[in-house]
């Protein structure tokens, strides 16, 4: 079976939670939600996942489906407490992201009177500073991958370093997944590095869609293809209505 770009993104998102064990996999965005549930279905069965609301489901459920049997209750207040507790790895979205992983979901332009008011910081400051965070960005471009974000909602590595290693010991950005590739911050000065490009994507395309200097170490591998079993789970179990294709076009 050959995978669509959306399906490659789903498995690339799933990989973010590899090795996490029994923690909450929280996710924003279709491919990210599917990734969390796919990871739980396959290589990371200890993960806890939700119905998209306040219920921890006994099994990973299809996107948009009722919770069915539940194994726990996680209303918003408990999410906010869990962030501080740390047994949580969240995959957030970002309207802007810079090379240190600072992100903005609050407002574009001067904060005092923005040209475009977005959501507000939501939980991004606490999420990034208190539990492991990754990002899912469905459409990479120079408008999103910017030299400097207009408002730091999610905390990047330079901001965390300013506060010192002790204060920022719970800060950690694991990876960034986009429609073009996978990135991490595994460089000595914790700036963004290209980990892999999705099949069919050239490194030059990624560079062209990035508004800052991206670290590229030698030959960049391809993002892995989903296995046949993963494709079956995505197509037949988790997302039979193909909502993923609305987020990432083929």
């Amino acid at each position, binding site marked *: 079976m050959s995978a669509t770009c959306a399906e490659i993104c789903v498995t690339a998102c799933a990989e973010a939670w590899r090795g996490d064990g029994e923690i909450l996999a929280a996710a924003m965005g279709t491919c990210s939600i599917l990734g969390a549930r796919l990871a739980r279905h396959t290589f990371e069965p200890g993960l806890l996942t939700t119905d998209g609301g306040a219920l921890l489901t006994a099994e990973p459920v299809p996107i948009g489906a009722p919770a069915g049997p539940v194994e726990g209750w996680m209303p*918003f207040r408990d999410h906010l407490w869990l962030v501080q507790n740390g047994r949580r790895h969240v995959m957030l979205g970002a309207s802007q992201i810079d090379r240190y992983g600072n992100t903005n979901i609050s407002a574009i332009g001067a904060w005092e009177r923005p040209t475009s*008011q977005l959501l507000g*910081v*939501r939980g991004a*400051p606490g999420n*990034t*500073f208190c539990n492991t965070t990754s990002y899912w960005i469905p459409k990479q471009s120079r408008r999103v991958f910017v030299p400097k974000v207009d408002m730091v909602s999610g*905390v990047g590595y330079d901001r965390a370093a300013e506060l010192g290693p002790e204060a920022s010991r719970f800060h950690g950005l694991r990876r960034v997944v986009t429609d073009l590739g996978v990135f991490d911050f595994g460089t000595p000065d914790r700036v963004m590095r290209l980990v892999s490009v999705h099949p069919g994507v050239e490194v030059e395309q990624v560079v062209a869609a990035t508004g800052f200097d991206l670290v590229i170490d030698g030959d960049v591998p391809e993002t892995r293809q989903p296995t046949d079993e993963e494709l079956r789970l995505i197509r037949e179990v988790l997302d039979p209505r193909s909502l993923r294709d609305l987020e990432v076009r083929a």
Partner: protein
Amino acid sequence: MTIEEVVGSLESGMTIGIGGWGARRKPMALVRAIYRSPLEDLTIVSYGGADVGLLCAAGKVRKVIAPFVTLDSVPLEPHFRAARQNGAIEFTEYDEGMFMFGLLAAAHRLPFLPTRAGLGSDVMRVNPELRTVRSPYDDQEEFVAAPALTLDVALVHMDRADTRGNGQYLGPDPYMDDMLAKAAGRCYVSCERLVEPGKLEGPPQTLLISRMYTAGVVETPNGGHFTDCGPDHGRDEAFQRHYARSAADPEAWAAFADRFLAGDETAYQEAVVRWHEEQHQEQRERAR
């Protein structure tokens, strides 16, 4: 009480906390009544949705204190965006968890509570009045001192309440409504259905708001409309889309306000029923 009596007891310049979360279980009947009222210069404290948007549209708001304003299935709130982009309101923007700690501080009569949420982010830059606090213990760690979000009044919408003012939620999430009630000098509870004392059915854990916090209770059937108010009413997605489309265009908004917001709550509910009938009629005609 009646809706008008609740809103009549409020004063311009007050700090008002509004319950629910985004587009979920908002006390919209009370919000609509404030929209129609002569109140102004309000500070609104909210995990914001159309409550914030409507009050901004009506020019009732001096300041919004919120971690976000969203309609959930419609990510951005058009009236709030316009108010921010026109510089019409002040905005105090906190992290969600920091905001909750502010409510908890107020609920427990503390000036602040320490948290890591906010450190390193521009929440500290855009709120220069925020202070940090150092642990007095050996770790000496520094935290954000989330200031108490003390409210003059809290408005919350419950699925059920009794005539004494005990409030019950029957959906999956209490949101922060009990914290808002405790953070406020007085709390007003609107409810889908009002029952006699002792007649609130369901597990005791669903009894969220105690009458000791409640200054008044008012029955507002479908008063959470168009926000999600399960199990009685899901979010009215079609109407919310109509709201969001109208709110993004001044002419369309004038027509929306004229049709839905010019009269009282009964008139609003009737107008919504008629709007849905028209939609069904149009669908049937298109299908022909």
